[in-house]
């Protein structure tokens, strides 16, 4: 399906916009860059400090519990709400700049539109708002309808669409003009597993053609499968940013069921890593820096004539990272 979303190898334009927000990075200026963006509604602080940068072609995950300010952050970047303080630039231009918006696609959470339109009419209308007309627009509509698997429903009114179909037609409208940057706010909300797979494939295609994707999702498995980097947002503040590569090479937890266990053994095991804990009578867990350490632990235990019943190494999942970063003071939203 390569090339279905848009023409590959498109030349990217040089970015204008505020020079102070053009910290050069390898590969060019940032596509999104914010510094201390803040939004308050009366006395309520929706976003406290949004400071982040997203590079060209990145698939960037934006994670946080309900009420953390994720959607408000996206709305500030799209100039749907005005920041109370701070600075930001998107595609090298000030927030809300029309030339930048012409290169941005947006799928809001719970996409809704005039339900008297058919799917095809909806895409035609959005194409016209991007000043697309005639054969190129109709051709683009057909391509996208096929890509989101809505050809059969193209001429039905969206009033009769299921939640998943609405999300898919919403995704198509976000891509109608072949954008350079796409904001997806909970794109897999309401989708069945096949629908999620479709969205994941589309994001992969966008990555291949160099489109930057800013993905806000609660489904950590989806984020883990698609994103290059993620930012964790807590109480309106970016508290941690990391690459998914960093996550996969970081700390490995080794769980072993062994016998006998004594204090001396636990102290000695701590030479291999940190956080040595004993769980029950014969379970020991230890965090090591690298998987390569695991065989050494096994050899060492055998040499000490410790019986090994099980030895299992696993990396920390994004969900565990999420829980760790958010801390124990978080409650379900």
């Amino acid at each position, binding site marked *: 399906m390569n090339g279905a979303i848009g023409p590959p190898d498109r030349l990217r334009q040089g970015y204008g916009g505020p020079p102070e927000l053009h910290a050069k990075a390898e590969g060019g200026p940032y596509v999104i860059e914010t510094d201390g963006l803040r939004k308050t509604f009366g006395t309520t602080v929706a976003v406290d400090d949004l400071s982040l940068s997203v590079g060209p072609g990145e698939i960037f995950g934006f994670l946080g519990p309900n009420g953390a300010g994720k959607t408000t952050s996206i709305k500030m970047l799209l100039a749907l709400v005005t920041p109370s303080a701070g600075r930001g630039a998107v595609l090298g231009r000030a927030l809300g700049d*029309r030339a930048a918006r012409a290169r941005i696609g947006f799928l*809001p959470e719970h996409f809704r539109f005039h339900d008297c339109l058919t799917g095809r009419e909806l895409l035609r*209308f959005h194409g016209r708002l991007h000043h697309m007309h005639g054969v190129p627009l109709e051709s683009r509509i057909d391509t996208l309808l096929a890509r989101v698997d809505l050809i059969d429903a193209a001429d039905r009114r969206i009033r009769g669409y299921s939640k998943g179909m609405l999300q898919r037609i919403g995704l198509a409208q976000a891509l109608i003009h072949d954008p350079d940057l796409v904001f997806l706010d909970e794109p897999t909300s309401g989708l069945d597993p096949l629908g999620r797979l479709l969205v994941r494939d589309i994001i992969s295609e966008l990555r291949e053609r160099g489109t930057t994707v800013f993905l806000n999702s609660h489904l950590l498995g989806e984020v883990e499968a698609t994103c290059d980097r993620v930012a964790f947002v807590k109480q309106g503040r970016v508290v941690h940013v990391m690459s998914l590569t960093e996550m996969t090479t970081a700390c490995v937890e080794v769980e072993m069921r062994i016998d006998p266990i004594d204090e001396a053994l636990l102290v000695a095991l701590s030479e291999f890593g940190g956080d040595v804990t004993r769980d029950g009578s014969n379970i020991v867990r230890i965090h090591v820096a690298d998987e390569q350490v695991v065989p050494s632990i096994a050899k060492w235990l055998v040499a000490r004539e410790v019986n090994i019943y099980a030895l299992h190494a696993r990396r920390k999942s994004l969900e565990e990272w999420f829980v760790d970063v958010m801390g124990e003071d978080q409650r379900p939203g």
Partner: protein
Amino acid sequence: MMSDILTIAYLTLFEARRKRIVAAALLCGAAFLTVFAIGMLAVFNDLGRRQVTFIERQTTIYMLTVAGLYAVNFLSVLFAVLLPVDAISGEIDSGVMQTIASKPIRRSDVLVGKWLGHWFVVAIYLLMLCAGVLLIGRLIAGHVQQNAVSAFGLMLLEMTLLMTVSVAGGTRLSTVTNGIAVLGFYGVAFIGGWVEQIGGIAGIPSARTLGIVVSLISPPDVLWRLGSYLLQPPILRDIGNTPFTATTVPSPLMVWWAGGFTIAVLIVAVRSFATRQL
């Protein structure tokens, strides 16, 4: 950008048609005109059976025609207020506006496009009902209404003003609150007009002054009163009143005031929507 305004206006018209708003309005308008035509026919036949003077006959037909236009004015007021009442607020609440406003289009273009689309529907509605009333009078009774075009222009300005207030309210108020507020705005104008009328008839200067002040704050009703004055035959202007026409003649300057008022409200609406948090 004009093409953006026209795209939004086209969507508004398309939506009005697809949602059968236009069909419902035309159906109700047709029902109204049917009743009016039956009434006109009955009155005309009755006048023919009785021996009445030419002036009595003409006056009766004229009064019935103006009564019809009065009803058209009232129906159109409701139509102009209610049609766009959720044009902005409803789309903000449903999230539709977020998708539109994220596109490379000025918010002012979105608002003006919606205003234009709704104005077109309101204007067509008013034109069809007015034309229907006048045509029925002409075909059944041979009545030629004087100053019909001027009166229609004033009624159209009245509807434009109310519609603009309704669109402007939607940029800040919820749909229901907006509807109540705009009908209240018209209610103030309506009662202000009657206070001025009664003040004029009874010779109470303070009541008349109050009516004029109210007309400045809420000018839609004064446009109907000026229009209804223009519709009167010269002889009636001199000899008496009808329930539907003005006894105190509003100043033609009120037309300029109402026009300026409409433009000012539209500018306020554009600015309000531009800073609205979506």
